[in-house]
């Protein structure tokens, strides 16, 4: 008998509450048990990841917006990739940007995927579901 695995922990770094809720709604129908934690800016994200007293468990997947208050997504990504304890965590950039330069820079900094947030809700739901399908079901995540 297979043991039920613990739920997948996802950290969403996003400053727009409307987008946070939308992602939450899209993940509600997910087939894989998951818990979404939210950081509202880059500073909060780094604290959630590095602070030993943080209430947020170490995530299995990070969804990261690029343009954030205080510390932007590029800096957060750079810090994650420089940290021995965090660098294995897949980071998916979820941004409104379609700029070539943002895409290239994100991959150079070690992003695992770059996804542009679609304007149409059906597509947005599809995107979140395919992220879920790939990262939570298809891919095997490192859970050291």
């Amino acid at each position, binding site marked *: 008998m297979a043991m039920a695995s613990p739920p997948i922990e996802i950290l969403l770094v996003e400053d727009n509450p409307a987008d946070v809720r939308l992602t939450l709604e899209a993940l509600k129908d997910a087939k894989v048990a998951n818990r979404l934690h939210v950081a509202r800016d880059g500073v909060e994200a780094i604290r959630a990841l590095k602070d030993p007293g943080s209430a947020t468990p170490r995530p299995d997947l990070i969804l990261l917006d690029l343009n954030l208050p205080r510390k932007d997504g590029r800096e957060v990504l750079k810090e994650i990739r420089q940290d021995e304890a965090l660098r294995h965590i897949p980071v998916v950039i979820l941004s409104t940007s379609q700029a070539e330069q943002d895409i290239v820079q994100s991959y150079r900094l070690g992003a695992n995927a770059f996804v542009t947030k679609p*304007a*149409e*809700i059906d597509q947005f739901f599809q995107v979140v579901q395919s992220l879920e399908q790939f990262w939570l079901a298809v891919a095997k995540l490192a859970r050291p």
Partner: protein
Amino acid sequence: MVVESLPTGVVMVDRAGTIVLVNRETERLFGYRREELVGRSIELLVPGRLRSGRDLSGVRKDGSDIPLEIGLNPVDAEEGSFLLASVIDIGSGKRAEEELRRSNEELERFAYVASHDLQEPLRTVSSYVQLLSRRYRGQLDADAVDFIDFAVGGVRRMQQLIEDLLAFSRVGTRGAPLVPTDLQAAFEHTLASLHAALDESQATVTADPLPTVVADAGQLAQLLTNLIGNALKFHGADPPRAHVGAERSGRMWTISVQDNGIGIAPEYFERIFVIFQRLHAREEYAGTGVGLAICKKIVERHGGRIWVDSAPGRGARFSFTLPAATE
């Protein structure tokens, strides 16, 4: 003396550079009375330190600089040889040009930033209205469904307007250098990108042999795409036909796109090139009224001009000029 009333500043100096004569316009330009100038060195008006290369500056009595164009004519008289200088203030034209350039740049920057920042709240409105419809489908009556459709339609239109405005602003801010570019290749590229529309409308598009012009290849393709796209869009009862012609006149090529579509009345020949101007209801022809404004901006960036010849029901011919790549 006729020199006195010339609209150009005239200054005569002797071989030592001493002013011997000035006219009224010179007094006005520099703010001195002639008694203050005659007998003084030309250094007073045009100091050597300001004479660099082609850009020449003078100094007014109040100390302010004045950009000048100076023409020199040697004059040999019995008293010896003199230099007769005609002096033109080029500052006013140059300043206006500079201000225009700066305000255009600011406008483009504003359009770019505003477009990005405007898209985000719009996306939120559209997402949540659609979420309402998705989540409560079956519980809503027909009115509620209509209202949601109108709201979503409004948002889509706004998104399109912003995107088009962004494309318009990019003509100025994101342009590539103007280099010799094969118009034939741009034309073929355009046909490939319009493939679906061509198939759907059963259109025939032909072209003369096309020349090499000095252009930004991306913008050239955009120009042709917009014009040929319009030829397909505004078609009459017959399947659309379009022909791209090329004719050389001096250093410019005149390129034309002739169609067999619904045509345009002459009173609208200017207006169609103005951004957001449309001649049709949205239900008849979709669009935001930006396409031809972009065409105009592209052509003008290349130093050419664009115009239309047409009559209602008689098709339209859009023509534009571009600099030839070879003399």
